[in-house]
């Protein structure tokens, strides 16, 4: 593929060449877009390079994220043949981007121990890779798979949130009959009341409180669990989320940012909180003192995502958890370690917590998180 307009003879060819070039670099450019690019040229917008760029951009880019890529491609293709300079810049940018990615990856403890993971990764290639991946432990993913899994997981969780929403809407069939709506709706059948319309009180939406452990021992999971929270966030408007390790931080306000990357950036400002030790009891105490009054009012459900490896006093954990239990309708503890075959909750923290918990469930792969659906549908 020629990467510069000068290698083509006619204007039409070079425009089509650009369309192909853009397509090659993963912009969504199909036949229709190429045709429109030709129309743009025939409208006389090629005279001014900037205008030509604006026009093509509106056709070739379908979201804001692609804008930079497009500008780069445009400069490379329609620029003077010293394209090598610009392409080097692109390379550099990419390298930088990669570095940044790695940094956040390291922050979240995903990027270590490559060799070991690649071996594990072999198991999950093949025709039913997606099915396999759903069941793969988050901590045993290779880099490549984790990218794919992120996509898959986000999709699945989104679907789940959507199903939940539907359930909320249609579940109520009781209520008194609304005569006005009934007549209106049955005019088609000549006034015979075939279908009764009912009026019911809107089911009040309950609150979901999530406490996510981001301490060192949870490193391999916290990234995915954060994703999970974000996915829930799109459909549960009343989510209240906190992260904790040695201290507790409320992140509900940060969650309104849509992109995970931005969320991570904001969270990294509290970087000292990530990957440090765990004082679950103290953090829950903090939660009870400062937030619980407001967060746990009304109908609500509380989910704690933690491996229960606590360095604090187990008694504190038990009392604080009990306080939460008194105010919440249902207390669920998700433990990634529970996915390991033969796991027994023998740690001091977990032993202290168990009596207070309503449901103790695993959270080590996509599949296990999807099982939460039954509980969430009651929220």
């Amino acid at each position, binding site marked *: 593929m020629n990467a510069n307009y000068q290698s083509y003879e006619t204007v039409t060819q070079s425009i089509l060449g650009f369309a192909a070039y853009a397509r090659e670099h993963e912009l*969504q450019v*199909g036949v*229709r*877009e190429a045709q*429109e690019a030709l*129309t*743009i040229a025939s*409208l*006389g*917008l090629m*005279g*001014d390079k*900037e*205008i030509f760029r*604006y*026009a093509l*951009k*509106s*056709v070739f*880019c*379908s*979201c*804001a994220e692609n*804008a930079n890529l497009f500008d780069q491609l445009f400069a490379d293709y329609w620029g003077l043949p010293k394209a090598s300079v610009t392409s080097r810049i692109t390379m550099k940018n990419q390298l930088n981007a990669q570095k940044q990615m790695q940094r956040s990856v390291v922050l979240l403890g995903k990027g270590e121990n490559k060799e070991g993971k690649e071996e594990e990764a072999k198991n999950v290639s093949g025709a039913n890779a997606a099915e396999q991946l759903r069941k793969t432990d988050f901590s045993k993913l290779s880099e490549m798979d984790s990218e794919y899994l992120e996509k898959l997981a986000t999709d699945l969780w989104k679907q789940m949130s959507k199903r939940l929403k539907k359930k909320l809407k249609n579940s109520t069939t009781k209520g008194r009959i609304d005569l006005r709506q009934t007549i*209106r709706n049955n*005019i088609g059948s000549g006034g015979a009341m075939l279908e009764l319309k009912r009026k019911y009180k809107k089911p009040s939406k309950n609150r979901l409180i999530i406490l996510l452990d981001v301490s060192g021992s949870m490193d391999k999971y916290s990234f995915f669990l954060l994703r999970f929270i974000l996915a829930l966030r*799109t459909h549960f408007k009343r989510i209240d989320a906190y992260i904790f390790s040695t201290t507790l931080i409320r992140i509900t*306000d940060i969650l*309104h940012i*849509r992109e995970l990357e931005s969320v991570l950036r*904001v969270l990294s400002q509290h970087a000292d909180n990530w990957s440090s030790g765990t004082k679950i009891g103290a953090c829950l105490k903090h939660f009870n003192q400062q937030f619980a009054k407001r967060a746990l009012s009304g109908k609500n459900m509380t989910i704690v995502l933690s491996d229960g490896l606590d360095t604090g006093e187990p008694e504190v954990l038990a009392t604080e958890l009990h306080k939460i239990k008194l105010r919440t309708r249902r207390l669920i503890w998700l433990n990634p370690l529970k996915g390991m075959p033969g796991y027994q909750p023998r740690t001091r923290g977990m032993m202290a917590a168990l009596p207070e918990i309503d449901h103790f469930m695993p959270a080590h792969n996509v599949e296990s998180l999807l099982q939460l659906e039954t509980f969430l549908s009651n929220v």
Partner: protein
Amino acid sequence: MTKEVSSFIESFDRLGYVVDEELATILFLMTSLQKPLLLEGHPGVGKTEVANILAAHLDTELIRLQCYEGLDVHSAVYEWNYQKQLLSIKIQESNQKTETEKEKHIFGVDFLMPRPLLKAISGSSKSPVLLIDEIDRADEEFEAFLLELLSAYQISIPEFGTIKAAHRPFVILTSNRTRELSDALRRRCLYHWVDYPDLDKELKIVHKHLPDIDQKLAEQIVRTINVLRNKNLEKSPGISETLDWAMSLHALGKKKLDVESFALTQGSVLKSFSDNQKINSEGVSTILEEANG
């Protein structure tokens, strides 16, 4: 600059809207390709205003559809006038018409109540501008319905038949990105990301709306707004906030933006409790210093 594009900029300028070269190009393209335009951007950067001005520029009607969760075909496309139909049935009970004639009568044009989308398609004289505002708030089902409309420009009503647009409307969709739109919809549209304007452009906008505002005050306002936008507030101030603020300060006869006048007019810029708290705790004077320094 291309002739057509600069004429767009001039015309918009006359109508009181500052438009940059990029948006002007795209608007020109949109009118000549007859493709819908999807505008995305933060709230309050003037996305909706684009449609208003475009309608004024083309000297045509603006039809607006505000999307919301649960928006359905009945409130977006058409609805039968049931009361009128019922009355009509009663009135016709005694006359000699056959059943089919009666039925045809009550499902006629007289009984059809067009909603925005049908209105936009059935215009008889001139292409209107159709603004589908905040499409991200509507459900996915509605988005899917729009796909059909935006590619064929026709609407089928089972009892009535298919209505095809005699004059294709110019469609502008806006989105605040509270939800990701489907690729299918994106591909049917031209796309433009509306960003916060730079200092010069915003200053121009302020002057456009308040011609007799003090130059220095206007500059101070725009700079301060810019600082506030970088403060990661819960609700970042948009252009409408800038204008509101300028108007309030202007109405109070202030010539300068200082701590006292800031406190008086804070409500037109910071619109949530936590934002107010955050700025106050950071200190208004430091923010003003940052803006002027």
